[in-house]
């Protein structure tokens, strides 16, 4: 007996309403972008400077007490939040204190951190500061730049690679799907106000990689079928290719999700945001490789004459002897 996620032979029509799906994706992208513009991201200190202190104490966290201790110091915007994790011991109560970057200070002032620690210790003698992180505004500005650069470079590199390996229509389809995935991920982070830090950029780039992985597998089959069925309409070829690879698409998504969900539940709160971004990305990425990347391909049309593969042999791995 074998576990089968999808029947052996499927013939779903993925493109009966492809304009609707494309429209829906466009609307979702607009909503995500709107949310980003209106609500903005909840940036971590990596991107806006400041200090976060992670505290641990054996008594339950009372945010009011923390606030009363810190407010007299006059440090401006201070955010205090309790952290929950199923992995914590019963007497392990964790809170995060975030202090904004102090005005006109390029570097970090040790006195600020010390004064907060002393103030908290005076109300909660057993409190421990398990991690203290400070980023000056100068560095955080640069981190934003490199992060944006990383995402743009990654997408650009991929665009060129797929263009070389396939055709420009494929490259464009793949890149629109990527932008779709990145935008929707940013959108959900701004909508749920989850902390957006450097690790999330790594997650975004992985999503880019994963989503591409999926898209490329479908495209590879499309290319193969284009050579095989020279007369078949493009829509049918796309449908056939997606159906043929559907089993693999779902298998891979399920194994990846399985691994990520284990990490989400058991991996601790420090990387939960990061893992959440990836889970979301896997789901969105799987969706987009069918309903965005392939739909764009259908919209743009492709070169149908693949009869002279010699033009592209330099780009093929056909002669790789495995």
């Amino acid at each position, binding site marked *: 007996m074998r576990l*089968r996620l999808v029947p052996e032979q499927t013939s779903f029509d993925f493109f009966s309403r492809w304009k609707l799906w494309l429209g829906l994706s466009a609307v979702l992208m607009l909503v995500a972008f709107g949310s980003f513009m209106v609500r903005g991201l909840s940036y971590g200190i990596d991107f806006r400077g400041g200090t976060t202190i992670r505290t641990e104490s054996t008594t339950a966290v009372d945010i009011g007490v923390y606030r009363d201790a810190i407010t007299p110091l006059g440090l401006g915007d201070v955010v205090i939040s309790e952290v929950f994790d199923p992995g914590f011991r019963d007497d392990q109560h964790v809170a995060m204190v975030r202090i904004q970057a102090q005005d006109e200070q390029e570097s970090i002032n040790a006195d600020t951190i010390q004064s907060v620690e002393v103030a908290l210790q005076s109300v909660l003698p057993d409190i421990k500061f398990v*991690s203290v992180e*400070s980023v000056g505004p100068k560095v955080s500005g640069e981190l934003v730049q490199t992060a944006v650069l990383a995402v743009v470079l*990654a997408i650009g590199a991929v665009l060129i690679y797929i263009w070389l390996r396939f055709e420009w229509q494929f490259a464009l389809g793949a890149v629109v799907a990527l932008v779709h995935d990145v935008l929707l991920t940013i959108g959900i982070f701004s909508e749920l106000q989850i902390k957006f830090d450097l690790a999330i950029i790594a997650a975004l780039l992985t999503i880019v990689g994963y989503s591409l992985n999926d898209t*490329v597998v479908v495209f590879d089959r499309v290319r193969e079928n284009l050579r095989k069925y020279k007369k078949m309409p493009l829509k049918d070829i796309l449908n056939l290719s997606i159906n043929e690879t559907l089993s693999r698409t779902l298998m*891979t998504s399920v194994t990846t999700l399985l691994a990520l969900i284990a*990490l989400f539940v058991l991996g601790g709160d420090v990387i939960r945001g990061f893992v959440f971004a990836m889970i979301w990305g896997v789901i969105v990425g799987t969706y987009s490789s069918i309903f965005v990347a392939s739909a764009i391909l259908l919209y743009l049309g492709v070169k149908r004459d693949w009869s002279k593969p010699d033009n592209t042999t330099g780009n*093929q791995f056909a002669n*790789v002897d*495995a």
Partner: protein
Amino acid sequence: MLHFDLWKRVLIWALCGVGLLLALPNTFYTRVEQSNDARSVIESGMTTPELEAQAAKWPGFLPSSLVNLGLDLRGGAHLLAEVQVADVYESRMQAMWPEIRDVLRPERATIGTIRLQPSAPNALRIRISKPENMDRALELVRGLSRPIQSLSGTGSSDITVRGDSSDIIVTLSDAEKLASDDRTVKQALEIVRRRIDEVGTREPTIQRQGTDRILIQVPGIGSAAELKAIIGTTAQLTFRPVVGRGSSADDNPGLGNEILPSLDQEGVFYTVETAPVVTGDELVDAQPSFDQNGRPAVSFRFDTTGARKFGDYTRDNIGSPFAIVLDDEVISAPVIQSYIPGGSGIITGNFSVEESTNLAVLLRAGALPAGLEFLEERTIGPELGADSIEAGKVATGVAFAGVLVFMFLSYGLFGLFANIALILNIAMIFGMLSLIGATLTLPGIAGIVLTVGMAVDANVLIFERIREELKTAKGPARAIDLGYEKALSAILDANITTFITAVILFAIGSGPVRGFAITLGLGLLTSVFTAIYVTRLLIVMWFERRRPKTIEV
């Protein structure tokens, strides 16, 4: 057909074997770590029976490289410091003044009297009383410039000299500034390294980042503040003649002098000469010690030139006070009692034992050429790191088990082959991480977990393809062959694109992001290897033995 040359088979198993062997030390992490520590101590010349026993905990013929744990897993402090390279310009310009004075003085007849004017700290402004002969003065000062050797700046000199009505303005040239910045950062890096080595923490990372930054990571240290106390101090020690003592910082010190506060006496200020008699650069040794009253102090010794200058000065100035200045604060200003010929002495002040020990370390390691400003600091407690490792282990284990079971249920025997490949894959990732001495961070663990999920992708592609080919092809051997052949381009394309993003992440990311890029990138390499070669070899070996008429994938 299904054919594998013998040498390929041997090579594949050999690579897997090497991977497993390299990964092996990580399963006995603490034991190997202790053994490695003990070995390095023994190598440095010391040995005790305990050390020998510790070293013997791990056999010497086995590989002993371990995956470094990042600060987020092990705890420690991380600092990003910016070297204030412009600090150096000021002292460079000050040092030029006597030279310029000496070259202009003999020409007083043509250019008139010369006088130093107040100016920006990185420039010298000299007024001459006969501005009509400015050209001659500029020519003389330009004569002092030295050519600098650099790749781009050949033919340029180290200073620029221009006239501004009756003033001569001397500044460092842009090329010299660049060269000076580079030297300053290199020196600062060296000093920081020496200071941290003096304190003796294990495996610190001290790297230059960009043009003027230094990244310092020290595992196991309690807090970034502690680290800053050691490396943040400039520790520029100077011995200077005292002109006077007062109680205000705002008095006019007079040209060539400056007013400095006392280190431990509130409200006491000393007027001292700007030019030092001897500096900390001329020290050869500094040790914590105690003065005759049993209070903590630091004893020091000068090198030959320093000793001579110090000796001459003490001989000529018996009865005058003499300031010992550390980073623009006067530690003490004792009166010279007698001629001190030997070039050694003792610094007393209100030190604690710890302060005197630290000061001795700083003086021994040398002064930083310029100040450091800290742009980023992170302290991660060891408990948090331990919790993260624990959570990471459990999550990886569960993820791993889940994927193994799922693959077996989906593909049966072939799933089992894929699972063997997956286990080898993880071992090889750890093996390679150990080999290249990479650092495992928390996002790095996530990268491995993601690899677990995605590594099966290549096998899934192949198996699905074999299933398809079984429907049409003639016989199982042909189907397997075709399955591998046709899945190859999709596997390579998919993995190369992901690899591109991993490379970009590695190139421009830093810290934890880089750790993630490394595990993701290595994971892709090993997973393509295991999927294309290892599972295939397993299938071929099974096929050769059984010769099944039909197969079920």
